[in-house]
């Protein structure tokens, strides 16, 4: 087994990294959930895996500015974001696909995209480009966000995030509650994004989705990364799966 030990803060700041997180701490009130999280990634796909309650969603919240970190640094493309408001972080290129999609029930599919269409003209991702990526959405333009199937909702949540034309897309449990064929479509979409130069950070609990989305796997235990491993190793090791994902082989 060639799993590497978690690298220390100084070592993670690779030159040219898109996102560098250093000693990030965050929590709710007195409860510290993230305990000095450090990692770094370039334009690639990275998965954060771990069981429930280990701090994966808190990590997403801290990265996107929804939860103000208590200490530590978040540097995206050379800019410090740990003290920024969510809208500034998003504008700087961190797009967010939250757990549970969080679509707007009052808006139709078209409106979800139209409200963000300003400033996308001439860029890679426009509402039309999103419809091209997910043709199923195009058929449901007039439907409300709440009338879509789980898969369509997830497509819309991803499409909405793409309209930011960001550098990094953070996805929190995108495969949750989806049928296997839809998960496949989602995995394809993440691969296309990385091919086009957009980094993807995915929080996953689903072993298959996690290992197919990214080769790099960061394992979160009790608010810190205990281990970095690869998809191949994770797939091959029932022991790792059982210990870190609670999957009984």
């Amino acid at each position: 087994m060639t799993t590497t030990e978690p690298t220390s803060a100084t070592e993670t700041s690779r030159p040219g990294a898109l996102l560098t997180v250093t000693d990030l701490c965050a929590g709710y009130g007195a409860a510290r959930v993230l305990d000095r999280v450090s990692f770094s990634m370039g334009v690639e796909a990275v998965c954060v895996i771990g069981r429930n309650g280990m701090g994966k969603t808190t990590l997403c919240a801290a990265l996107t500015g929804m939860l103000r970190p208590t200490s530590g640094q978040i540097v995206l493309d050379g800019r410090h974001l740990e003290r920024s408001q969510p809208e500034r972080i998003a504008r700087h290129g961190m797009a967010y696909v939250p757990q549970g999609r969080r679509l707007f029930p009052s808006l139709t599919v078209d409106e979800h995209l139209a409200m963000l269409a300003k400033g996308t003209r001439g860029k890679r991702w426009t509402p039309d480009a999103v419809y091209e990526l997910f043709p199923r959405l195009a058929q449901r333009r007039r439907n409300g966000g709440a009338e879509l199937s789980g898969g369509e909702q997830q497509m819309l949540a991803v499409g909405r995030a793409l309209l930011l034309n960001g550098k990094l897309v953070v996805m929190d449990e995108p495969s949750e509650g989806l049928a296997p064929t839809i998960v496949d479509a989602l995995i394809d979409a993440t691969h296309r994004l990385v091919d086009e130069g957009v980094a993807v950070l995915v929080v996953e609990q689903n072993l298959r989705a996690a290992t197919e989305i990214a080769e790099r796997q960061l394992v979160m235990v009790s608010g810190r990364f205990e281990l970095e491993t690869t998809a191949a190793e994770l797939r091959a090791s029932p022991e790792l799966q059982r210990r870190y994902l609670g999957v009984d082989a």
Partner: protein
Amino acid sequence: MQGESARTLDANEAASAASTPAVEPWSIRSTRTFTTWLMIVVGVAVALWVLVFARGTSAGAAIDEPGAFLVTLLDGLTFAGLLFVVASGFTLVFGLMRTVNMAHGSLFLLSAYVAIELQQSMVGKDRNIEASDVGILQWIIPLLVASFAVAVLGVVMQQLLLRWNQGQDLRQALITLAVSVILADQMLAHFGGLAQRMVWPGAVVKFFEIAGERYALSRLFMLGLALVVAVLLWLWLNHTRMGMVIRAGVDDQEMVRALGINITVVFGITFFVGAFLAGFGGVMGASFAGVAPGTDGQWLLNSLIVVIVGGLGSIRGAIAGSLLYGMVISFAPAYLPSQYTYYAIIFTFVLLALVLAVRPYGLFGKPE
């Protein structure tokens, strides 16, 4: 393809099953049937009373006195128009920012005073203005200027006092309450304690005959303005990017911010529109019934009743709430037995109690 859709369906079901219990406890269901029946019984009883049995009332049974019935209906409709203009601004601000703007009525009254002063200086008289002295512009310009002025004041209040208390509902409510007390005192000092009236333009001060009764054109003019406001509001919220952002913000403010939208600007614009509507309603109200110290509190209360009935934060709710409340206000005194007319006000509370018993969050409201 078929297999895929079937599986998607399963995923859907799993998701919905997780979020809501599939089977409701029997007690909730039976309460619901009970309240539905209660509503039907109340509705039928009221309709029968108004149509046939209301002989000893000031309006008389509708089958005997169709004219009086029509007038009461129109009174209710036109007053509902005014209610809607004022309450829609209130509900818009609440829906997006969760701010209960207790100074909404103060903005209403201040706009009325400003418009009255402006009209007086435009006409060149400060008392006894006749409708024939007032051209349509001498009504419209004060209306727009005064509404704009209080809209700016509203934004200043929001930026100066509310912005840094965002998310602290109680604190914001108390701050706006303080603003309303201060404004009430200042208005009393500036504009005096006497009732004042804005004068309708001469062109709409006419009467026409309807089913044997005379009816004021100005009231229909007021209803028309309210309809224009409703249509513009609808177009704005449904067909502009800003409107979509506002509706999205009502659903999930945090998510809107995570999509890179500067919610502070959206808040400012929404507060501007909300205060503008309060001011617009204030000028309409001042022309319709006059204003005096205390009108501010009365219109805050009116707005609250409309949005509690309709559901806080919903424009459709504001329409429904205005209609119901407007009808209760016009029908209750007209169709109570003459010696009990004095108790008509009670029916406002009956309306509130009935609606809240059936839908605790109002007709179109969503639970927090």
